[in-house]
């Protein structure tokens, strides 16, 4: 087991000997990966919000004021038997007024001035999970809109679509920025390893002469790359978490966004672990690139 101890000790010695380079590499890797993390965190939260809104979609079928009770009953039966409809709720004109009064108590006097209740009766439809796509909802709305007694159909699809579009762009940006910054992290770590190799070229040469295999020579440097990448990504994660908590606290203080802080979330443990693992992987790739030529000097 001395050989294993030797490899670990060499990796540690490399990190310690080039202390300043090691610290600089960890810090630059951390800032680089933190930038990737910001995009990733924004993307994850916006995607969650889009999914949540998509699941919470409600279609409101407003009825004509002149609709008869029979027509309401017919419409109710049609909607209840529709396979797109998962849940159905009827809101009469009176109930609509009551809800308005609860939701907007200070503005209620505006309606009182009109004398007659201007709010229409409606059906609130929750679409079945399989029919929540924008296309399915649009097709259904068109079909139901033509029925007798229906005045208008309203749903929050447009801005859900807009959000989905933003999420798609953010996804592409995250991939592009992530790729570029990951390449930067690989380069930073690769250069650090190259410096370590240069500083220890004599030792590498001696190891080769005494019969060390290429793998034996490379392992300490691969370990070093993994440690640099892992430490950098862990630090980036810490910075992100600190920044995230500050953001959440601050946004909670702004009245307009009150409650928003409960909707945003940090990476779950599995994603955090994957983030560090990816950092380690990038470090190993950086080392491998620098080590490609070691042990292949035979002319």
């Amino acid at each position, binding site marked *: 087991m001395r050989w294993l101890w030797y490899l670990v000790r060499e990796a540690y010695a490399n990190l310690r000997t080039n202390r300043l380079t090691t610290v600089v590499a960890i810090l630059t890797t951390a800032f680089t990966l933190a930038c990737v993390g910001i995009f990733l965190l924004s993307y994850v939260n916006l995607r969650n919000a889009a999914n949540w809104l998509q699941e919470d979609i409600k279609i409101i079928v407003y009825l004509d004021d002149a609709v008869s009770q029979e027509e309401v009953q017919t419409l109710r039966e049609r909607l209840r038997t529709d396979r797109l409809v998962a849940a159905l709720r009827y809101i009469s004109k009176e109930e609509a007024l009551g809800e308005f009064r609860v939701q907007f108590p200070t503005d209620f006097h505006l309606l009182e001035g009109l004398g007659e209740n201007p709010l229409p009766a409606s059906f609130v439809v929750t679409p079945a999970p399989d029919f929540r796509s924008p296309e399915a909802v649009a097709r259904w709305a068109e079909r139901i809109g033509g029925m007798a007694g229906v005045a208008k159909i309203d749903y929050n699809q447009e801005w859900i679509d807009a959000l989905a579009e933003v999420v798609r762009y953010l996804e592409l940006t995250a991939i592009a920025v992530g790729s570029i910054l990951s390449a930067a992290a690989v380069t930073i770590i690769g250069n650090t390893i190259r410096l370590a190799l240069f500083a220890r070229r004599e030792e590498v040469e001696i190891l080769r*002469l*005494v019969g060390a295999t290429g793998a034996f020579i490379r392992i300490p440097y691969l370990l070093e790359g993994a440690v640099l990448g892992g430490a950098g990504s862990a630090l980036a994660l810490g910075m992100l978490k600190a920044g995230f908590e500050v953001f959440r606290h601050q946004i909670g203080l702004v009245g307009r966004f009150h409650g928003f802080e409960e909707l945003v979330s940090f990476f779950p443990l599995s994603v955090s672990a994957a983030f560090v693992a990816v950092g380690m992987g990038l470090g190993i790739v950086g080392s491998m690139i620098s080590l490609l030529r070691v042990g292949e000097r035979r002319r």
Partner: protein
Amino acid sequence: MFVPEAIIQLIHVSKSYDRRAALSDVTLDIAKGEFVLLMGASGAGKSTLLRLLIGEERPDQGQIFVQGKNVGRLKQAEVPYLRRKIGTVFQDFRLLPNKTVFENVSLPLIVQRASMADIRRKVIEALRAVGVEHKKDQFPNSLSAGERQRVCIARAIVNGPVVLLADEPTGNLDPERTAEIIELFKLINARGTTVVVATHDPHVMTLANRRALTLAQGTVVQGPG
């Protein structure tokens, strides 16, 4: 053709760098257990020959056998295993300054994944054989040139190589230390290890009093095997 009793055999070997011939059509045999001096001025091709023997380089032409293995045809991954059978000693010692004498000598055993007990036993034996056991915890920079060369020799013999190659091993030593090192090589040779010493120093030839192959401008000019 491979000669079974020869542990080292070169057959019409040529090697050049940038069209300048370092070795030209060299053919020689070194028998198992032999002590051979490779004489020649600087640039005669001695170091090139040693580098070819440890698989550091490939010949442009010809074949090289070490203990029956065609070194020129070894795959890159096989070269480390060849080097584990060959001990190498250099004029500039090539010891790691940040490691103790014990750690320096243990390197060939560590790369072979020897056990802790084996490493301890063999390193102490090797250091005792070259007379620097008492220096095992010191760092190379605190040793004299002669002691450093002894440590280098201990590292070369620690895993019981079949061949010991030395490239100008006395180049940095005074005459007294030179004589001691040559005596050490004779002792190692007497225990069965084939020893090849490359030197430009005629004094070494006198001290060793063994078969000498003289190289000049890349060819063997005297005493081929």
